[in-house]
C-alpha cells in the first residue's frame, strides 16, 4: 500500500508541477495577478507531494519491503538502519527522486524567501523551475519508477553496495545534489530575465545568494566525495579525473565563474549577456553530468547501470532545455547587452580574466571527458585520456588564475590607483616568495620549480585574502569596517589558498610504500616505525573482517595505533578495504591491508600524506566564505 501511495503522490506532484509551470508564466505574460498568485501554492503543494513520495520510499526501505524491486536490489535485512536510509538515494531511481525533491525544495524556498523581488519575476522563476520539474517527474514516472513491484517478493534483499556503506557516502550525494539542483535557480532567473527583458543590478542582487548557496553545497559535496574516495576506495589518492568526478567539477568551475560575473553585473551593470550565458551553461553542465552518469555513455567506476531508454530520455530533455535556453539567449540577449567599456586597471578586468580562465579550465575538462567519445565518432580510432593529461591541461589556466586572484581582490571597481597596489601587496608578495621557497626546504628538505610555484601561489592567496580582514580589525571598528560580502570573499579565497597549499605539498611529498609484513615485524616509512602487532577477526553487522593492529612509533615515542580492516560483506561476497588512518592537522598516516601472501605475510600499503587535510579544510573554508557572504544584509530586504 505504502509504495502505491508514494507512486500516486508522485503523479499528483506532476499535475501540480504543471500548474506551477503554466499558470504563473501565463500570468506574468498577461500581467494577471490572480494567475501569478498560483505560483506560491502550486509550489508548496508540489513540494509536499514529492516529499510524501520520498517518505514512502524511505518507509519501504526501513520496513524491508522486498516486494519493491528497488528496495530488494539495494537493501538487506541486516543492513544497519542509517544505511537503509542512505540506500534510498544509492542508485538511479532513488537518487532521481531525491533530485526531484530537492528541485521542489529549492522552488519552495524561492517562493518563501523572495526578498523584495517583484511578483512577475517570482512568477517567471517559479514557472521555469516548474517546467524543469515536469521533465524530471516524467523521467521518473516513465522510465525510472522507484516503486515498481517485484512479484513474487524476495525473501531478502541483494544488499547495498558495500562501497556505499559509509557515512561519508551517505551524505555526499545529498550535498552534491543540493548544489547541482540549486544551479537550476540561477538558470530560472536567467530565463526569467530574458523573457521579461529586464536585467538590472537588482536582478543580479536577487540571483547572487541563490547561486552562492548552490555553489557552496556543491563545494562541500565534491570535497566529501574526494574524502570518501581517499579513505574508502583504499587507493590513497584524492582526485582521479574520473568522468563522474568531472561531471560534478565542471558545474563547479562554471558556477565559480558565474558568481564572479554576477558580482560585476550587480556592482557595475556590466557583463550582462555573459552572466546569462554562464547561468545557462552552469545548469546545462549539471544536466550533462546527469546524462553522462545515468546513460552509461561513458564507462566509469561510479556510473549507474546502463539503460538506453533512460539515456535517450535525458538526452532529449537536455536538448530541449539547452537548445530552448540558448535560442532564447540568441534572440533576447543582444537587447540586454551592455556596451559600456571599462578601464583596464580595474576589478572588472580581473573578474573578466577570472571568467575567461575558469571557462577555459571547464572546456579543457569537458574536452578530456568527452574526447574518447568524439574521437571514436570522427575516425573510429580509440583513444583513452587518463589523469596525466588532465593534470597538465588543468594547471595551465589554474596557475595564472591563482596568482591573479591576489591582485583582483585588491583592485578597485572602475579605476585602480596603481600606487595603492604596491602599498597593499608589498608585504604579501614578499611573504609569498620567501615562504614559498623556504617552506618546502625547511620542512621537507627539497625544492623544485613546481613546488615553489605552488607554495608561492598558496601563500600569496592566503596573505592577500587576509589583508582586508586584518586592516578592518586593526582599525578597531571590527565588523563595521568590512561588509559580510567582502569578508565572505576573503574567507573563500583563503580557503582556495589552503587548498592549493595542501595539493602542492601532498603531491610533492606524499609517500606510498607497498610492502609485505609479518606479525611482529617493523617497517620504516617517512622516518616512522610501523609495527604489525596482531591480526584478528572482527564481526560486523553484515560483514566479517580481518583487522590488523599496527603500532606507529617515532623512535621511542608512541604515536598511534592504527587498525586497518579487510571486510567481506556477507551478501555480495566482495572484499572491501577499510583503511586505517591516523589523521593530524599536518599529516595523515594511512594504512591499508592487502592480501595474505603465500609465505604467511600480508601485503600492506603504508602512506604518509603531509597536509592532505588542507585539501578538505580548504574546500570547507571556501564553503564557509560562501555562507558568510550570503548573510550580507542587502540580500535580505523585505518587500515594501
Amino acid at each position, binding site marked *: 500500500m505504502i509504495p502505491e501511495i508514494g507512486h500516486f503522490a508522485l503523479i499528483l506532484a506532476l499535475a501540480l508541477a504543471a500548474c506551477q509551470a503554466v499558470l504563473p508564466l501565463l500570468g506574468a505574460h498577461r500581467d494577471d495577478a490572480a494567475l501569478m498568485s498560483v505560483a506560491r501554492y502550486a509550489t508548496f503543494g508540489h513540494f509536499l507531494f514529492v516529499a510524501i513520495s520520498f517518505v514512502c520510499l524511505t518507509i519501504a526501505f526501513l520496513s524491508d519491503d522486498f516486494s519493491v524491486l528497488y528496495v530488494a536490489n539495494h537493501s538487506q535485512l541486516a543492513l544497519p538502519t542509517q544505511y537503509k536510509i542512505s540506500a534510498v538515494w544509492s542508485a538511479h531511481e532513488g537518487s532521481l527522486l531525491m533530485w526531484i525533491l530537492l528541485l521542489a525544495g529549492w522552488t519552495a524556498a524561492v517562493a518563501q524567501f523572495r526578498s523584495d523581488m517583484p511578483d512577475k519575476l517570482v512568477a517567471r522563476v517559479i514557472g521555469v523551475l516548474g517546467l524543469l520539474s515536469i521533465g524530471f517527474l516524467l523521467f521518473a514516472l516513465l522510465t525510472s519508477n522507484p516503486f515498481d513491484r517485484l512479484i513474487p517478493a524476495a525473501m531478502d534483499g541483494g544488499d547495498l553496495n558495500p562501497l556505499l556503506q559509509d557515512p561519508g557516502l551517505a551524505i555526499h550525494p545529498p550535498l552534491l545534489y543540493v548544489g547541482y539542483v540549486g544551479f537550476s535557480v540561477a538558470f530560472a532567473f536567467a530565463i526569467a530575465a530574458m523573457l521579461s527583458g529586464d536585467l538590472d543590478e537588482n536582478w543580479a542582487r536577487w540571483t547572487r545568494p541563490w547561486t552562492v548557496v548552490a555553489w557552496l553545497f556543491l563545494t562541500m559535496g565534491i570535497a566529501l566525495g574526494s574524502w570518501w574516495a581517499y579513505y574508502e576506495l583504499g587507493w590513497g589518492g584524492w582526485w582521479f579525473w574520473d568522468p563522474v568526478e568531472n561531471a560534478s567539477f565542471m558545474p563547479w568551475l562554471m558556477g565559480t565563474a558565474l558568481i564572479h560575473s554576477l558580482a560585476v553585473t550587480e556592482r557595475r551593470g556590466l557583463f550582462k549577456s555573459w552572466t546569462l550565458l554562464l547561468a545557462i*551553461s552552469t545548469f546545462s553542465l549539471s544536466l550533462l553530468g546527469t546524462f553522462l552518469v545515468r546513460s552509461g555513455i*561513458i564507462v566509469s567506476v561510479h556510473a549507474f547501470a546502463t539503460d538506453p531508454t533512460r539515456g535517450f530520455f535525458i538526452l532529449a530533455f537536455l536538448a530541449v532545455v539547452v*537548445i530552448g535556453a540558448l535560442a532564447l539567449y540568441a534572440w533576447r540577449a543582444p537587447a540586454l547587452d551592455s556596451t559600456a567599456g571599462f578601464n583596464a586597471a580595474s576589478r572588472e578586468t580581473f573578474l573578466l580574466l577570472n571568467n575567461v580562465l575558469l571557462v577555459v579550465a571547464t572546456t579543457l575538462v569537458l574536452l578530456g571527458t568527452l574526447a574518447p567519445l568524439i574521437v571514436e565518432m570522427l575516425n573510429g580510432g580509440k583513444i*583513452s585520456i587518463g*589523469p596525466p593529461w588532465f593534470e597538465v591541461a588543468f594547471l595551465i589556466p589554474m596557475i595564472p588564475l591563482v596568482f591573479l586572484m591576489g591582485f583582483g581582490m585588491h583592485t578597485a571597481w572602475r579605476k585602480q590607483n596603481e600606487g595603492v597596489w604596491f602599498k597593499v601587496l608589498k608585504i604579501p608578495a614578499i611573504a609569498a616568495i620567501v615562504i614559498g621557497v623556504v617552506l618546502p626546504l625547511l620542512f621537507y628538505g627539497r625544492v623544485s620549480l613546481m613546488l615553489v610555484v605552488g607554495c608561492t601561489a598558496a601563500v600569496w592567496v592566503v596573505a592577500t585574502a587576509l589583508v582586508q580582514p586584518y586592516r578592518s580589525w586593526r582599525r578597531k571598528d571590527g565588523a563595521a569596517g568590512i561588509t559580510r560580502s567582502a569578508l565572505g570573499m576573503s574567507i573563500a579565497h583563503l580557503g582556495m589558498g589552503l587548498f592549493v597549499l595542501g595539493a602542492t605539498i601532498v603531491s610533492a611529498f606524499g609517500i606510498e610504500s*607497498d610492502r609485505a609484513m609479518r606479525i611482529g615485524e617493523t617497517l620504516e616509512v617517512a622516518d616512522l616505525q610501523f609495527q604489525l602487532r596482531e591480526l584478528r577477526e572482527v564481526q560486523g553487522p553484515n560483514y566479517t573482517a580481518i583487522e590488523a593492529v599496527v603500532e606507529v612509533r617515532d623512535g621511542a615515542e608512541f604515536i598511534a595505533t592504527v587498525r586497518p580492516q579487510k571486510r567481506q560483506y556477507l551478501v555480495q561476497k566482495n*572484499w572491501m578495504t577499510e583503511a586505517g588512518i591516523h589523521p593530524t592537522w599536518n599529516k595523515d598516516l594511512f594504512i591499508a591491508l*592487502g592480501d595474505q601472501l603465500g609465505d604467511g605475510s600480508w601485503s600492506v600499503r603504508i602512506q604518509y600524506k603531509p597536509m592532505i587535510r588542507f585539501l578538505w579544510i580548504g574546500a570547507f573554508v571556501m564553503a564557509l566564505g560562501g555562507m558568510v557572504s550570503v548573510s550580507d544584509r542587502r540580500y535580505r530586504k523585505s518587500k515594501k
Partner: protein
Amino acid sequence: MNRFLLPLVAVVIMIPIMILGLQSDPSKLPSQYIGKPAPEFSLPTLMDPSKTFSTADLKGQISLVNIWATWCGGCRTEHGFLMELARTNTIPIYAIDWRDKRPEALNFMNQLGNPYVASGFDEDGRVGIDWGAYGAPETFLIDADGIVVYRFTGPLNRALWEQEFVPRIAELQE
C-alpha cells in the same frame, strides 16, 4: 555571424555526437577481430622482463585476455572477481598491462593479488591499440586456435561472467 548564436550552434553540433554515443554503447562495441586470429604481439612480462608473453601462448587452450592498468578505476573494481575466478581454475587468465608504470603495476599485484598466468607489459600502448582497446578494462575470450570469440568492455563481475562468458565457453567446449 551573430555572436549570440554561437553557443546555440555549438550545442546543436554536440547533440548528434551524444546520440551516436548512446547508440554505440561502449560495452557492446564489437571487435573487428571477432572470428579472426588474435592480433600478433610479443611483450616482456610484467613480473619478469626477461620472459615474454606472445600470441603463441594463447594457442592450445581456451583463455581470457584482460587489458588493464593501475590508472584505471574499473580494473580495481573487477580485480576481486578476477582473483576469485583465478582460484576456481576454470580458465587461464592472461593480461596486457596497458600504458602502465612497472613499479606501480607491481605494487598493485602485491597489494591486491595476481590472478594472471602471465601479464604482458605494454608500456607504450602499441599492443593495446592493435587489439583495438577502447579503454581499460576489457576482456577478450580466445578459443584454443587463438581466435577472438568475444570481447567485453568494462569491469567484470560474477553476474556478467555467468551471463556473457559461461554460455560461450560451454559452446566452445562442445
